[in-house]
């Protein structure tokens, strides 16, 4: 029986070769040629989109409904937050450079870029911690008014995402130092890259909708 060569897809799965007789493989399992782990991460990011969508919607719905000060306009320090936004944007660049490095097989350079990304993430978190403590000293807490509740919930969850991302990046660096992360494992870095950029695009929206758009 003549067979054609099997087609190897990027996920390592092998599709069945085309056969002359349909009796041999009645129920083949077709593959769409994408890695399930990457698809899973995209599905998670889609669900996280909805999560942050509801938080942003809640903030915007309750905007200007606080009757007790402090109010957003007198609380935010936009130049300071702009620097934080720059730091997170810069971390996106270093993150994608880490991916480009491991895809070229440059593991040492990848570790440098990953470490730089984690460091920038820590700088962002430090900035957020400073901002939160400043707001707290100014009398804004989670239970002060609607602005405090919605603002701290939204930015707090985003900060938690950044913190998880930092731990993830550091674990990749450790794996690389132990010799467990090579060019053929670049998918693991790519999935972390997707997560990190998602955190960045959420901040792009928060920065505009929460900090810049006037009351």
């Amino acid at each position, binding site marked *: 029986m003549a067979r054609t060569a099997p087609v190897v897809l990027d996920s390592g799965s092998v599709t069945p070769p085309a056969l002359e007789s349909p009796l041999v493989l009645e129920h083949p399992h*077709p593959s769409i040629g994408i890695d399930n782990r990457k*698809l899973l991460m995209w599905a998670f990011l*889609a669900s996280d989109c909805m999560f942050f969508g509801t938080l*942003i919607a809640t903030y915007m719905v309750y905007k200007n*409904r606080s009757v007790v000060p402090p109010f957003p306009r007198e609380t935010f320090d936009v130049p300071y937050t702009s620097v934080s936004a720059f730091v997170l*944007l810069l971390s996106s660049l270093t993150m994608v450079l880490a991916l480009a490095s491991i*895809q070229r097989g440059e593991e040492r350079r990848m570790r440098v870029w990953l470490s730089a990304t984690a460091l920038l993430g820590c700088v962002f978190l430090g900035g957020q911690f400073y901002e939160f403590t400043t707001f707290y000293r100014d009398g804004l807490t989670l239970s002060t008014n609607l602005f405090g509740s919605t603002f701290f919930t939204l930015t707090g969850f985003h900060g938690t995402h950044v913190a998880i991302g930092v731990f993830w990046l550091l674990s990749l660096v450790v794996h690389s130092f132990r010799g467990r992360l090579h060019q*053929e494992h670049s998918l693991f870095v790519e999935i972390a890259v997707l997560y990190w950029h998602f955190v960045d695009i959420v901040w792009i929206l928060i920065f505009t909708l929460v900090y*810049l758009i006037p009351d």
Partner: protein
Amino acid sequence: MSHGEQHLTHDGGGHAEPLEHAHPGARTYTIIGVILAIFTLAEVWAYTFEPLRPLLVPVLLVLSACKFAMVVGFYMHLRFDHPLFTGVFGFGLAVAASVITALLFLFHQYPLPHVE
């Protein structure tokens, strides 16, 4: 997945056509990073530029949408990856945008009393 590899879809007849394309390199990433930084600067400038106040909201929304699209398209590779990823993420994004729009419309039509 190796860099520059083209991914194939199999139509059962032995014919394969590319659905994904090579990811951009470090130079493209850096250029995108510079553009994103410029857009962020433009946002802050628009915020502080008083004559632009009537147009501030649409200007900020457009700049923000451009930054969002550039990060998703180039840094997250949606522009180059399998269209299924765009569909999955686009669905979540559409639901989120619908929730925000619907709630804003609803609370605009039926505002809450200013009581805490």
